[in-house]
């Protein structure tokens, strides 16, 4: 038998770990951000989401958001995320994929 020894070509990942945001117990009275990256159909999905959440959570308020950079698809920047975080309590997003 012949033995072939080769170098592992795959890079190790630079690992980070974030703590997820604490969750509220319900959405009543919450400011709900609806985030869309401009890809087709996402706006329809978020409008429907607003309709479906308005009934069980009548005190919820909604705001629509898009990313600030990009053309066909809009992407969120850290600065944009800071702005949204100041304005809402939770976010529902879609990239349409």
């Amino acid at each position, binding site marked *: *038998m*012949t*033995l*072939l*020894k*080769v*170098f*592992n*070509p*795959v*890079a*190790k*990942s*630079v*690992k*980070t*770990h*974030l703590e*997820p*945001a*604490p*969750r*509220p*117990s*319900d*959405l009543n009275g919450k400011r709900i*951000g609806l*985030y869309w990256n401009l*890809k*087709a*159909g*996402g706006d*329809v*999905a978020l409008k*429907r*989401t607003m309709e*479906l*959440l308005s009934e*069980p959570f009548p005190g919820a308020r909604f705001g629509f958001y898009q990313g600030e950079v990009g053309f066909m698809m809009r*992407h*969120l*920047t*850290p600065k*944009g*995320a*800071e702005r*949204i*975080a100041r304005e*809402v*309590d*939770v*976010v*529902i*997003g*879609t*990239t*349409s*994929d």
Partner: protein
Amino acid sequence: MTLLEKQGVPTVAFTAEAFVRDARRSAESFGLPELPIAVVPKPFTNQPPEAIRAMVAGAIDQVIAGLTRPLTRAEIPEELVFIDEEWLEFEGEDLLGAVRAMNERFLAYGWSDGFPLVPPTEGALEQMLKGTGRSPEDVVGVLEPGFGLATVKKVAANAVMAGCRPEHLPVVIAPVECLAEPKIYLRNKAMPTCAHTPLRWVNGPIRKRSGLNGGICALGPGAPSFANTVIGRAVRLCLMNLGHAYPGVSDMDTVGSPLKYSACVAENEEASPWPPYHVGHGFDPEASTVTVQFV
């Protein structure tokens, strides 16, 4: 979504079934494998409004749960294989059998572009590293979407596998360094449903030193474009094995493209009626440059 979670905002994102692996892998790469998703049967894109509305209605409980229930770490798919060992061993009845065993295993791991790979043995790696003055452990960059640490040695290993010669290595390292620049926004080009490929455009004396073709059939195939082909291929392997942009998991290109295997050309500076591209960007004519443009 991870940017928002980092700001203390709970999030949930609609995700089509076909993209669940991609979403889980991305969430893990960004350090938040618990990130909740609301799974819908199909992408919203190109669906009629009634179908989108129905899919959202079917997933609304997942939306509420994702925002209001404590999170648990999701199962991360295991299609991708990461091995801690620095050196790997393969056996065969003879050398060709061992090479075949390596190729079959790398293919199964997803580390191959589909063509046979040259084994990155210690000797081959040592020879390849003679093509650069940089230390093997120098970090060329961190490549998205997997945030892989691209050292010179890892780049060299992928260059060996692609069939490169030592004189090609600088033309592989330079675009990898370029792709690691945050402003190129690599994850946006490496992961989506479109067939983006980084075309590399080489100027200056290194064109001749590395044997790059800027003439007939410069994008290959064939002997005149040997250097173009293997250098281009090496960068594709780097995108996969260093950036972890693996097709079907973290590269969701709908159809793919032959250009994604290899796309590297030299400018035919001598025949061009215009100043060389790099000179137009302020470089000395004797400087060697590589330009990366996604096409």
